[in-house]
């Protein structure tokens, strides 16, 4: 604390009294007092009023003019006759006063109280300003997070729009490619058919038949390729309905019969009646590709197609067995890959894009089914497509076919 008193004896008296409990500095007038306060703000200023160079009230005014000294309490030493003055000073920035003459005890008490108050104020002040800093920091953090979120949102929206555009681009590309491949096929097959109609069944017109067979083959290739691209683009979805799996297999056998006959193969179908709830497009894809493959790879003998529903009605099983060259076990994984073909021993080119089994696998994935391969080199192969059936639907269709 700082004692500002021009009377040397009084100054000493006060300083010595306070020195017991506090660190005390002294000044002989207001100016010196101000200098010392500015140099090192004390916890308390004890000041006389009447002093040379700068009076006590001038000192107080100087102190209160400086915001950083706002919490430094001032204890005024006042003469009895200074009633009005000390009351005024209380209003202008002094916290307490002592009327001369005063005792050591009173001096110590009042000084002690003011110090305690100041310390408490300082602690509170520090606390508040710390909290203010914390709040500001928090506010900045929130602002940063908000900006971060806004940026992420904008990015996510961009990504979503990109994905949508890409998906639409893929879809329109598929439409375009499909159209570009099918249009010439249409022109070719129409003309060939017109030729046949106009000129009858003359042997010279076998060419027209061949054009049509090639056209149909080409159409199947295009269909397969487009289906594969669609499957890869994630556009293949199961659309189940009531379908008789056996009728479906018989249709396929009828369609591929001529192809088998052309190669001197027998095509057997073992199927009764199997109404079930599944996607006929996907089932057709699976069975047609398996039968087509079997016929392609079998040089002589037969291809057999079996349709079974398991005893507990949980699975539909299509089994295609051929008397072809067989597939070595180490190739079983490979042949399911797109564009993979295992040529036969004489390296004869097997027509097709090599996508058939990859497509079968895709379609079975969508149906929740699986493909089982069994094959012996030199004897033949058996491919079994297993498709799980939805039980609730089965109940529904069993109701529609009593005794079925």
């Amino acid at each position: 604390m700082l004692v500002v008193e021009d009377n040397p004896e009084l100054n000493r008296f006060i300083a010595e009294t306070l020195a017991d409990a506090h660190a005390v500095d002294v000044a002989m007038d207001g100016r010196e007092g101000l200098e010392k306060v500015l140099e090192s703000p004390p916890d308390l200023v004890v000041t006389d009023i009447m002093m040379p160079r700068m009076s006590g009230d001038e000192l107080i005014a100087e102190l209160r003019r400086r915001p950083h000294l706002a919490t430094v309490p001032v204890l005024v030493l006042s003469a009895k006759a200074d009633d009005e003055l000390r009351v005024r000073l209380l209003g202008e920035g002094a916290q307490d006063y002592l009327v001369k003459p005063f005792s050591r005890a009173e001096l110590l008490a009042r000084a002690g109280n003011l110090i305690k108050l100041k310390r408490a104020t300082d602690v509170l002040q520090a606390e508040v300003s710390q909290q203010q800093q914390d709040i500001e920091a928090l506010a900045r953090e929130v602002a940063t997070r908000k900006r971060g979120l806004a940026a992420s949102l904008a990015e996510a929206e961009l990504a979503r729009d990109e994905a949508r555009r890409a998906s639409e681009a893929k879809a329109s590309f598929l439409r375009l490619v499909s159209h570009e491949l099918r249009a010439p096929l249409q022109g070719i097959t129409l003309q060939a058919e017109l030729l046949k109609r106009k000129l009858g069944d003359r042997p010279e017109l076998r060419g027209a038949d061949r054009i049509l067979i090639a056209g149909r083959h080409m159409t199947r290739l295009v269909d397969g390729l487009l289906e594969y691209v669609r499957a890869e683009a994630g556009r293949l979805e199961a659309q189940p309905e009531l379908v008789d799996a056996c009728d479906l297999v018989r249709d396929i056998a009828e369609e591929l019969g001529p192809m088998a006959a052309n190669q001197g193969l027998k095509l057997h179908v073992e199927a009764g009646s199997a109404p079930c709830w599944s996607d006929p497009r996907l089932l057709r894809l699976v069975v047609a590709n398996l039968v087509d493959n079997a016929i392609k790879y079998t040089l002589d003998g037969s291809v057999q197609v079996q349709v079974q529903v398991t005893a507990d009605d949980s699975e539909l099983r299509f089994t295609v067995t051929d008397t072809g060259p067989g597939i070595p076990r180490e190739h079983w994984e490979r042949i399911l890959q797109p564009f993979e073909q295992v040529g036969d021993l004489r390296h004869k080119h097997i027509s097709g894009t090599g996508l058939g089994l990859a497509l079968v696998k895709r379609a079975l994935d969508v149906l929740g089914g699986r493909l089982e391969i069994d094959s012996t080199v030199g004897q033949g192969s058996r491919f079994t497509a297993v498709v799980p059936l939805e039980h609730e639907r089965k109940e529904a269709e069993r109701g529609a076919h009593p005794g079925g």
Partner: protein
Amino acid sequence: MARILVVEDDLLIRESMVALFEDEGHAVDSAVDGQDALDWLTGGGAPDLILLDLMMPRVDGWEFLARRGEFPQLAGVPVIVVSGGLTDTTVPIEGAALVLKKPVSIDDLLDAVAALI
């Protein structure tokens, strides 16, 4: 005997269809794209049935179907869409009585026309 309008931008397909239906004894008009077809209708053309391609320049099949209401003579006239660009022909198209996927055989074409005339 009916008046058939073939709307198809592919030369070979268009000529084949015209030849086919003329052989069958129908009166056939043709348009090279949707715009050509609209112009023909504006000029007073009145078909009993329309064979419509979808992917064509200037005015495509979709737009043609959307604008068929502008022509009172088209009320009740069946439109058979024959398209190469559709992946799923089981999805109905507004304004079309039937959707066929290219390449379609002559038998299927004739059956479709016979069923709708």
